[in-house]
């Protein structure tokens, strides 16, 4: 059985990798298996965890679960085109609750705290210490301050990018591009890691070629 499982896993892995050569039947078969499996897995997980694990088991104890179940039922009305519009009610509940929650979270974590973290003395290690910060700290401070500020200027749409404002925005787009470069680099690293994981499986677990 173990031999079979290993060979099956290797067969599927190589099937996906074969796409690098060209689109082919082996790849399509593997992809179809993957898509079908993941959809099935999600269905089973959600059924047992949500419907059975939460609603069915907990319904006696927590009556409010019926409210959720009812909203869920309304969602399924989509399947009947004539009264499908009712499914918008639970949807609006979700949209409303989510935006309410997120508005505060984003506003405090991604705006207020970030603005606060960007306010610091540029050339000093602490207040009252004079201009005592080392070159590396000063450069770091300047990058954070100028990067945040010019980035904001670039995304300010109420003023034409002309004159000093235009130059600031230009610095902003440079900063954004450099950020994207770093992000791209990280993504390459991520993809390589995933590929190494598969190569390790093929060469080590499957063929036993690596010590």
């Amino acid at each position, binding site marked *: 059985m173990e031999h079979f499982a290993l060979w099956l896993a290797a067969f599927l892995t190589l099937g996906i990798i074969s796409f690098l050569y060209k689109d082919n039947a082996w790849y399509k078969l593997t992809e179809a298996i993957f898509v079908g499996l993941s959809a099935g897995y999600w269905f089973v997980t959600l059924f047992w965890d949500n419907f059975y694990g939460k609603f069915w088991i907990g319904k006696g104890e927590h009556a409010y679960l019926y409210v959720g179940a009812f909203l869920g039922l309304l969602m399924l009305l989509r399947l009947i085109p004539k009264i499908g519009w009712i499914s918008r009610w639970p949807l609006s509940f979700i949209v409303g609750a989510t935006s309410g929650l997120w508005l505060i979270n984003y506003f405090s974590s991604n705006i207020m705290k970030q603005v606060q973290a960007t306010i610091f003395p540029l050339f000093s290690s602490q207040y009252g210490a004079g201009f005592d910060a080392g070159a590396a700290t000063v450069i770091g401070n300047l990058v954070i301050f100028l990067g945040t500020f010019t980035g904001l200027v670039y995304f300010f749409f109420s003023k034409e990018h002309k004159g000093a404002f235009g130059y600031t925005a230009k610095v902003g787009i440079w900063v954004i591009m450099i*950020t994207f470069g770093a992000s791209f680099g990280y993504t390459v690293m991520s993809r390589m890691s995933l590929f190494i994981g598969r190569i390790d499986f093929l060469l080590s677990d499957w063929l036993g070629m690596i010590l």
Partner: protein
Amino acid sequence: MSTKAKEILAITIIVIFCLIFYIRKVNGGEGILFSSLVAWLVIGAMVLSLVWILILTIRGRLISRRVVFIYVGIALALPLFMPFTQRIPISPEVRALYNSVETLKPGSKVLISFDFDPPSAPELQPMAESFIRLCFERDLKVIIMGLWPQGPQQANMALEKVLSDEKMKVKNLQYGEDYVNLGFQTGNEFVIQRMGSSFESMFPTDYRGTAYDSLPLVRNVKNFSNIDYSFNLSAGFPGSVEWVQIAVDRYGVQLGLGNTAVQAPQMYTYLNAGQITGILGGMNGGAEFEFLCKYKGKATKFMLSQSFAHMIVIAFIIIGNVAFFLGGRKSALKKS
């Protein structure tokens, strides 16, 4: 010979090759390790061939994309056979995370959220293993949960690996007392939100179906205020962003992050604002953490491959740019 015949031939050779090695493995054959000389010869050959590709490009002959794939594949695979070890410099954010775990008193409760699934495992699983190992070594209590359905299974795999270690066996760690896996819960960010008032309402039973109340480790854990440190292994949504925004900013949880490299750059803003104590970004972060934990896991093992592949990518970026500036792709619009 037709293309079809060539393809069939190639597949046959590969199958025979795999069969030979598989039979060899089943019969107890050991792995292969290059000698230093062979390793250097391989590296030299690769460098020379890259120079040759550069020359071809300058002459106006562009290589096909399959060549790039082959190079990347070779660069990732061959270092696994090489006898070199790579020096791993430690970045401040990794050290900060390590320090924040090290300063915890024995017996402190650490919550680890596994918010990833097998596709991201090569990056995050090594972090999970070394983090759990560090916790156990320092006698910290580990509470595991997952916002992704397969997360708790990944956690079980990591636990199994860590606990099979001789050093850990001596400690005789008990499920329910020293560590517990609360399992998966649907509801994404709302799960974290609800955990702020009650863990039990989100996890009435653990992964095995044992009631929350009958687990000694978590019986007295009501909400985040009973947790001393929290670590989130994340590959996307729901994950790190939600943990920072809700657990940290609303409930004051001390949080460290282990992220896939795709996600990591976005998390540095939270590091800069002091919302998180540290971050392990991608396989590199994992390797640095393993180094600090004095443990050689998979992240360390794979770093050489990672570095080789990066060199190849850099080489092809140079070659690509040469082609770009000699050819000029963007002028297409102007021409039209």
